[in-house]
């Protein structure tokens, strides 16, 4: 174990993060100070090499997803143009990409999509962008719902807790992935008249609503348990006696103490949400043509794997790398927050 001051001083400049501000303060004062749980966690996390590497990988994925329009501008192609239709030499007589390895070359880095002849590289970039940002929004929404319901149940107890608990149980008993599939067309038709084309933003909203409607339960249970263990602690009672309103107690006393489990649970939820979105698109009720989407690329790829196996290579490898990195990151975050759970 290094001394706290050494640790903070040595690593701070190389990493840009919110935490670095209080750390550099601590360095300047050159005194032994207590560190906040956040600083302790950050210190532990930085020493976990697997965690840092997987965090970098995950960040890389999010960066290229966010920068997809920029990258495609520099690269000079977009995921919608049917290059194969405009330039017949790109596809052969079976509408498969001409040339070796799925048409990969200096111009089309990851090859060309069979039949329609779109560019695979930009399709993948935009596809990841769609999946990741939908998943991010859904995860935020289900975290908020889960935290609110968990806090309400845990803090108020009694009848509120009982009924919220029963509702949570009911939603957990639903075969949820089947319900995703069944609920998707319902939600879209509520917004759009049946004879009209469904706009993409409505689909996005529908996916977010469906996923978070059936995805908040484990967060709620976790937060309820955490709140129950905090509710009767002295500092909460002190706040109550001093006349704080329930809202203030929840906001100022409870919330800061449950940030840890919320963050850990959210890092575990995000990759599984991305996979759920991919699942929906793969079975054909999520995103549809022409929206580029990660899951839909597998649906296209699975159809033509016999003729053009290269189409699925990059989406598949990217997904494996991403999921592995995210799972490792989740483990590291949990270890950093709670060093007691050894692996």
């Amino acid at each position, binding site marked *: 174990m290094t001394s706290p001051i050494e640790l903070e001083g040595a690593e701070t400049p190389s990493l840009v993060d919110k935490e670095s501000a209080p750390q550099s303060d601590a360095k300047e004062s050159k005194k032994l100070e207590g560190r906040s749980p956040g600083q302790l966690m950050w210190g532990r996390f930085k020493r976990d090499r697997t965690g840092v590497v997987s965090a970098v990988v995950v960040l890389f994925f999010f960066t290229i997803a966010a920068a997809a329009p920029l990258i495609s501008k520099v690269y000079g192609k977009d995921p919608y143009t049917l290059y194969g239709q405009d330039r017949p030499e790109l596809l052969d007589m079976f509408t498969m990409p001409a040339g070796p390895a799925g048409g990969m070359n200096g111009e089309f880095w990851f090859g060309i999509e069979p039949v329609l002849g779109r560019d695979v590289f930009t399709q993948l970039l935009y596809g990841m962008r769609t999946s990741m940002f939908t998943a991010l929004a859904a995860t935020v929404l289900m975290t908020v719902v889960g935290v609110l319901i968990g806090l309400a149940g845990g803090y108020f107890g009694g009848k509120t807790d009982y009924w919220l608990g029963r509702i949570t149980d009911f939603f957990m*008993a639903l075969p949820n992935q089947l319900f995703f599939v069944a609920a998707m067309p319902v939600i879209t038709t509520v917004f759009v008249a049946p004879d009209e084309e469904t706009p993409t933003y409505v689909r996005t909203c529908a996916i977010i609503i469906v996923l978070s409607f059936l995805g908040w339960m484990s967060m709620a249970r976790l937060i309820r348990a955490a709140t129950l263990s905090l509710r009767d602690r002295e500092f909460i009672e002190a706040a109550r006696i001093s006349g704080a309103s329930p809202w203030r107690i929840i906001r100022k006393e409870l919330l800061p103490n449950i940030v840890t489990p919320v963050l850990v649970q959210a890092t575990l939820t995000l990759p599984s949400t991305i996979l759920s979105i991919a699942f929906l698109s793969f079975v*054909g009720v999520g995103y549809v043509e022409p929206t580029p989407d990660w899951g839909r690329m597998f649906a296209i790829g*699975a159809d033509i794997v016999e003729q053009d196996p290269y189409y699925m290579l990059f989406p598949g490898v990217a997904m494996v790398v991403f999921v592995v990195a995210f799972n490792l990151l989740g483990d590291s975050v949990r270890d950093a927050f709670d060093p007691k759970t050894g692996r």
Partner: protein
Amino acid sequence: MLQFLIRRTFGAALILLLISAFTFFMFFAIPQDPALLACGKNCTPDALAIIHKNLGLDSPVPVQYWNFLVGIFAGRDFAVGHCAAPCFGVSFANNQNVWDTILDRFPLTLSLTVGSLLVFLVVGLGTGLLAAKYRGTWLDKTFSSASLVISSMQIYFLGPLVLLALVYSTGWLEKPKYVPFSEDLGGWFMGLLIPWVVMATIFTANYTRMSRSSMIEQLQEEHVKAARAKGMSANFVFFRYAWRGSLIPIVTILGIDLSSLLAGGMVTELTFGLAGLGRLALKSVTDKDLPMLMGVMLISAALIIVFNLIVDALYAVIDPRVRLS
């Protein structure tokens, strides 16, 4: 025990009732007339009215729901004929009896899910035990990292790759298909081998990991050390004392995984072109075929509940404390 079973059955019935109500009323939130589908292209208002009457769509939604529930236990009469006791109605899309269609598809889904369940339990627990036994060696590390990578390959990526490697390019195995096992046991096994293994991969790693960590924990328990100290053989202690204790958390996650198992089955069916319940559910969703969708939902939910009861019974087998209480 009897009391426990009665309570669980009531709970299961209540859940099924709630699921059916939820699906039914959710479906009628769609502002599109389901009879349009049965009516076809050249639809006149008169024809539409007749179809409404034939399908029982002319009564208010709660009454329709009640008729649906009564039909399950007592059977119903439709214009196309009588529908016998477990009656889930007739399909809006093709006038087929829903129950018969489900019975037709069910064996495939059951073979698929139970088969892959067995594969991932055997492989997952087996590698977990080996990794725990040889903890810290190269074997442990290989299993842990391999399971992490393999489990991150989704069915829809791994499936086509396996097809490509074993079917299309080498011809070692045939393309997966379903043969009823009462007809041809070997054909049934060979036809579903690839789907079982591919579907099992996404679950295996979780069980390897759980089984490893829970086994390591158990091996450090006092009663396990005591058993070893009084001279019992290492293998006996490993299996009879430690392994049994390590199964409890695994049974818990098995109960949680059951509904993902059905979804996994859906993806597997799509990937390998098999026609089971999952594909039926998808088709009924796109067709807006309510009776079919309701049937598949309720049967799947019932399947999950039955599996859950089995899992609960497993607790009693594994953990004597559960039996006593």
